Each structure stands twice: as C-alpha cells, then as structure tokens.
C-alpha cells in the first residue's frame, strides 16, 4: 500500500471509504449517516460551517472517537475501533488545527516523538537527525532539525506536523484547517507540498474554511451541514458560490431581532488599529482596523477562527497592547493601558473562554457575581454587606432567570448557560456603556441561548452599546443591527443586518478579496 502503481488502469482501489457513519452526542446528532470515499493521491476538500460535524468525522477517522454505526474501510480492510496511536500505525495521520508539538523540543524530537529510533534502549540521535533532515528536504525546507520548535513560525510548525505525518509513512493525511493561521506566501508553499503529496500517491482529506483555495488545490469535495452530507463531487465546474449555498442552506434558527435599532451616538471608536503578534497565543494581528460602536445597537462581528475577532475585542478592552492607531471614548482620544482603564470608562468584556478567563471556579456563585460591584455593597465603610450581596444576586437571578439552588453553590456546579448568565449579570450590575461579548453562547444549550440573545437585545434597547462576536452566523444575524465581517485581521465588509444573509456574510468572511 505504501507505493501503489500510480499508472494503474481503471478505477483505482480506494484509499479510504467511510460508509454510513453515525455519531450521537447527548442531545445532538453530530453525524447522520455520512459516507465518503477518497482515492489514493486524491486531495479531498471537506467543507462545512462551524458545528457541521467536520471535527467529529475527523476524530472518528483519527481514532479519538468511535462511531455509533457505520464502517471505515482503509487500504481494503475494515478498521476496528482503535486508539489514535494504532490508527497512526496503520497510516492515517491527522494534523490538528491546534498543533500537538512540544515547543521546547527540537524538530527531530517532535517528528519522532514516541517513536525514537533506539539501539540498546538508547536514542540514536544521529539517525534521528539524519532522517528528519531527509524528510524536511523532501518538503523543500532547509531548517536544522536540532532547532527547537518554539523558534519556528506558525507556518514552519505546520511543516513539522506534516514531516511527522510523512515520517510515519502515512497513506492518508487529514489536515484540519491547515491554512487558517498562514499568510498568503506560506499558503502557496503548503499548496505545493500538498501537490507533492498527491504525486507521491498520498491521499489528503483537507478541511478548510477558505473557499478560494478549494478549486486551486482539491480534486473533489464533500459538504457537511448539520451532521449530514449535503453534497459531494468533483471540483471541476463547481463555483464557490454553489459551495457556500450548500454549506449554509438552511433555515435561520433564531428569530431575527436586530436591524431595527435607532442607533445613538458613537461611544467607542477605533481608528487604524494595528497590533503585533503577541508571544502568548494569538496567531493574527490587527491590520488597520477602524470601527464605530454606537449606543443602543447590537454590532455583530463575524469572522472565521483566526480572523482577528478576539484580538479586536481584547484591544478595545485594553487587555492587549495597541501598537498603532487610536481609540476614542465618547469622542475623546483615550489610551487604555489595562482592562481597569477600560472598565473605568464603562467598557466591559465577556471573554471567549469562560472557564479560563471569566469564572472563579472554586468560589460560590454569589461571590462570582458580586466581585466587581463590592465597592457599592459595603457597610461600616470597610465590610462587605453579605445581605446586599444576596439581594443583588436575587435581583439578577430573577431578571435573567438563572437556575440554581442557592448563591452559596459553587459556580462550577451550574450549567454552561447559567454560568454565562452569572458572568453577564456581573457586568450588567456595573452598568456598562459598552459591552463586548466574545462568543457569548459557546457551550450554552439552545434554550439558554435564546434567553441570552433576548438579554443582549434588551440591553441595547436600553442604550448600551453591545458588540457580539460569534462564529455562528445564525446568531450574528439574529441579534445584530449592524454586522461587520473580518478576515485575517482586516475588516472586509459592513452590512445592515436586514441585508445580511449567510451567503453574503460567508463570502466576505471566507473568500479572498481581490485588492
């Protein structure tokens, strides 16, 4: 199977055949009877919106999840459920969007991690470095294999991931949004490598959100929507517009609430924001972003992962360092050095990662809610008035319909939706002028989602400037009065919510604008 004759006549034997895979998670049918076929040397695009089931399929292929029904045939054999390592040994390599590299180790150590060539129980370093060099050469890159991965650019790290897949002599390489974090020059190099893999008869399952690269690179495509396969076929003759339609073609889940606002004055304005790549996380920098945030309206910011949405939110909040450009609060030029500065001016942020950035998991629900309002809950000058705390909790518990037994309950024991309502209450109690929400309904069930949407719209009606960042287009369209699309750290469009459709948004988010 390693090197089948590329000149074989007739229909080539399939590399991978997925038949009728179904996977159910509590409350969701993640994959519904999905079938997929990939021939050796074929580059197959797997497309779909966030939550369409792409990642689940990928996990089932890599062995991280097992399917409830259906079969996977690989290299002519039906695969049993097995662990990721066994799948790798069979020749299915997966390159996840978030790399699994160890930054402190060298390239060679990462490539051969767990499979180091041994002799008498000792690592054969020279052989390891030699083989790594050979693979890197094959990829057309000249980096010393002794270089620690931490010193490589994102694109180079991607190459290391590919080198690892090659070192395992894989027949199928699954790539999850490999170009999400790459610049256009690096994308070209990656495409060259994928083409090279094709020539070596290695099959590639290529997951991407960047539709413009699909016709350039891929042979065939499959589109998933809501866990179902809605289209598959050869790329030739298919327009990107058709792909977009297949990806989003469904009813809007939520009732549209936005588009009706009479926007007030501009409370926060950004002009020409630029940031630098920060050392800790973040793969995009803002490039000349200017926006106006007005009181009384919900501004939606749509963009794919890595478009710079979170970076924009954090910059507006003073949590990330601004490199160039200016911020105006109520028309006055202001520098925000820290979140405290922003909060003092009435700007608040609901961060993207609830557990890591918003909740105090070892603390009670009540303490989580009252922390920023303690100044207003004092008695005898210095002491926290616990009764006033409880009153505040009860007020928001009623207003936002937070379901919990008592305020003394640990926040970690609440459901995602209720946790998010506590986070919202906490900021609402501070009477924000501008409220920025990064993925406000991530990990929140459908019922609570609708409730949170209603809360946000109500806030805007009462004069708060609400900014909602979301990867869910349906959500953005449901609550926004105005929508801004972002891509690669730039703003690519601004639409009135009533004009916005998933197609118009998706094309602005995903297709390279010709400049």
């Amino acid at each position: 199977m390693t090197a089948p004759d590329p000149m074989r006549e007739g229909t080539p034997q399939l590399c991978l055949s997925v038949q009728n895979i179904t996977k159910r998670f509590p409350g969701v049918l993640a994959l519904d009877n999905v079938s997929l076929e990939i021939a050796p040397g074929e580059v197959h695009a797997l497309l779909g919106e966030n939550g369409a089931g792409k990642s689940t399929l990928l996990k089932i292929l890599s062995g991280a999840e097992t399917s409830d029904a259906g079969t996977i045939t690989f290299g002519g054999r039906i695969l049993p459920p097995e662990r990721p390592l066994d799948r790798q040994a069979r020749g299915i390599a997966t390159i996840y969007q978030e790399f699994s590299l160890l930054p402190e180790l060298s390239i060679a150590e990462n490539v051969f991690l767990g499979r180091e060539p041994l002799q008498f129980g000792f690592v054969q370093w020279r052989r390891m470095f030699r083989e790594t060099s050979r693979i890197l050469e094959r990829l057309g890159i000249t980096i010393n294999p002794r270089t620690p991965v931490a010193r490589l650019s994102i694109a180079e790290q991607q190459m290391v991931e590919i080198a690892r897949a090659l070192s395992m002599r894989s027949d199928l390489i699954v790539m999850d949004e490999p170009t999400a974090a790459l610049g256009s020059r690096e994308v070209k190099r990656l495409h060259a490598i994928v083409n090279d893999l094709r020539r070596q008869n290695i099959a590639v399952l290529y997951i991407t959100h960047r539709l413009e690269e699909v016709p350039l690179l891929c042979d065939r495509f499959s589109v998933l929507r809501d866990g179902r396969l809605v289209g598959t076929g050869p790329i030739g003759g298919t327009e990107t517009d058709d792909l977009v339609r297949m990806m989003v073609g469904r009813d809007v889940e939520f009732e549209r609430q936005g588009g009706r606002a009479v926007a007030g004055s501009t409370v926060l304005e950004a002009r020409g924001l630029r940031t630098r790549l920060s050392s800790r996380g973040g793969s995009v920098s803002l490039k000349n972003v200017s926006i106006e945030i007005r009181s009384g309206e919900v501004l939606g910011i749509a963009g794919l992962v890595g478009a710079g949405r979170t970076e924009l939110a954090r910059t507006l909040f003073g949590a990330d360092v601004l490199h160039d450009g200016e911020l105006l609060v109520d028309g006055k030029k202001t520098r925000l050095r820290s979140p405290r500065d922003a909060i003092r001016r009435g700007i608040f942020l609901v961060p993207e990662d609830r557990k890591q950035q918003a909740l105090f998991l070892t603390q009670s629900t009540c303490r989580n809610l009252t922390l920023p309002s303690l100044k207003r809950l004092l008695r005898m000058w210095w002491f926290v008035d616990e009764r006033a705390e409880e009153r505040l909790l009860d007020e928001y518990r009623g207003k936002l319909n937070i379901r919990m037994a008592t305020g003394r309950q640990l926040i970690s024991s609440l459901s995602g939706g209720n946790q998010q309502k506590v986070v919202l209450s906490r900021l609402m109690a501070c009477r924000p002028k501008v409220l920025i929400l990064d993925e406000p309904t991530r990990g929140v069930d459908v019922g609570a989602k609708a409730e949170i949407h209603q809360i946000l719209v109500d806030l805007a009606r009462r004069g708060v400037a609400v900014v909602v960042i979301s990867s869910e287009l349906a959500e953005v369209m449901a609550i926004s009065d105005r929508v801004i699309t972002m891509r690669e750290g730039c703003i690519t469009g601004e639409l009135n919510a009533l004009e916005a459709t998933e197609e118009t948004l998706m094309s602005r988010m995903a297709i390279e604008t010709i400049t």
Partner: protein
Amino acid sequence: MTTEQEHRSVGSWGRGAVAFLERFGILIFLVLLIVFFYSQNNRFLSQRNIFNILTEVSIYGVIAVGMTYVILTAGIDLSVGSVLAFAAMCGAVIAKGASEDRFSSGSNVDTGWAAAMATACMVGLVAGWIHGLATTKLKVPPFVVTLGGMTVWRGATLVLGKGGPISGFDDSYRMWGKGELWGVPVPIVVFAIVAILGHIVLRYTPFGRKVYAVGCNREAARLVGVNTDRVITSVYVIVGLLSGLAGFLLSARLSSAEAVAGEMFELRVIASVVIGGTSLFGGIGGIGGTVVGAILIGVLINGLVIMNVGAYYQQIIIGVIIVLAVAFDTFAKSHRSR
C-alpha cells in the same frame, strides 16, 4: 439536577458525615493526637504545658496567618524566617542604641519596646513590599524571589549583629514574650488578635475577596478590573509585617535577638497553612484551618518531647505525620466530589 437529588436520597446521613469529615477532618486529627499524648502522659494537658505549647505556636502562627494570604494567591514566601531574624535584629539595635552596651541588661528608656516593635514591623513590611514588587513588576516567580530573600535577609542579619546576638532587654520589652495578660501569656493574646483580624479581613472585606479571586483565576480577576499586582504585593507586605512582629515577640521571649532566629521557620509556617487545608494552587482555604494546623504542629513537637522521643526521631515522625495529615484531609475532600 436529578443526579443531585439522587445523591441526597442515597443517604443524607452518610453525606452529612462526609461533609463533616471534610470540614473538620484536621480538627478531628488534632483531637485524636491530643488524646493520644494525654494517655501517654497526663501532664500533657496541664495548664502550664498548654500555655507552653500555645506560646511556641504563637510565634510562627502569627506568620502563618500572613502566609495563608500568600498561599491563597497561589504564591509562596520562603523568606519569613530570615525576615523575622532581620526585623528582630533591627528592632533590638533601635532599642539598645549603640552596640557597645549590647550585652548589658536594662536600658535607659522604658519605651524601648515600642520603638523596637515598630521598627521590626516596618522592616518586615518593607522586606515584603520588595518581594511583592519583584514578583509583580519583574515577573520573577515568588518561589525564586523569596528564596533569594531568604539568604539576603539572613546575611543582612549577620552583618547587622556582627554575627552574634543582641541580648538583654528591659522588663517592659521582655513582657511581650514572657508576660501575661489576664492570666494568658502575651504572645498567645497577640496571636489570637492577629488571627481574628486576619480572618475578618479575609472573610468580610473586598480585599479578602480579591485575594481569593486572584488566587483562583488571575486572568479572570484582571478582566473584571481587579488590580492584581496590588493585591499580590499586598499579601507579601502582610506576611512581611507579621514576620517582623513575630521577630519582635521571639526576641522578647528569648530576651535576645539572635542571628540564627527563625531558621527553618518557613517550613513550619507553610506546613501549618497546608495542613489547615489551604490549597497551594490558590483560591481555597482560610485562617481557621491555619490556626488548627499551627496548633497541630505545636502539639506534635511538644508531645514527642514529653514522651522522651529522641530529637533525631522527632524530625522523622513530624515529617511523616504532616504528610499523613494532609493525605487524610485530601481523602475526606475527595469523597464529596464523587
């Protein structure tokens, strides 16, 4: 919701017992230990011995109250023993004036103790402030900062005392270590006041809430507008000040400010806090547990002496019991989360 109700119906008594164990596990352990030592020697619970134990406990207990704040923010302070010695030495120098008469007893001013106490506290406070700034501004981990501080302040003590002790204080000074107030040794009274104040600040003030918040999730605290640097600096200031106070009490008790005072204190102090149930990862714990932890260590040391266990064996036993006590506590806690 349903699983929670099921849990309750499974056995409210069993659940209650577990909750009780979780909350009071260490206290029960302490009581068992006391019963054991008493059964070995009934002098153990004589009033004199109890005061003896508690006076010993008070010196490092005062620091342990401050250390609770530090550990709640997920920090650590290894320098407390050295800060104690340096602060006490500074206080002694102020109280005794010129170093020529450093071995003579008595002094010409009765208010020497006040100057000494104020100096010791101030010196400790400044030392803690430096540690706090180094961790927050220079971003050096507190473990390293205070590891450095540990040798710096010890060295400074040796320089200041020229390698030796400063001893011989007047009665009003020694009263703070050996005197009694309402029939209770003064250090115990001081410890009680410090512990109660420490508890009130931690439990009932916005600052206390912020200490928990910063220790539990520093990034989240920053994003809701807590001045995390100021909170962290403050906890090192608190533990420094209390180390200074403990230094003053110890010098009063020994009637001598020793260059070697407080050596290995950091271990006893940290053990008190950890035995008391405060998590080294921050965000969980409190002063009540720390007081129990400090007393537990005092009881162990004293009990082993009374049982005539050799000094070498004492160290082994104390180490083992500390680990067992925390294991017992963890065991009790892990049962609830299931």
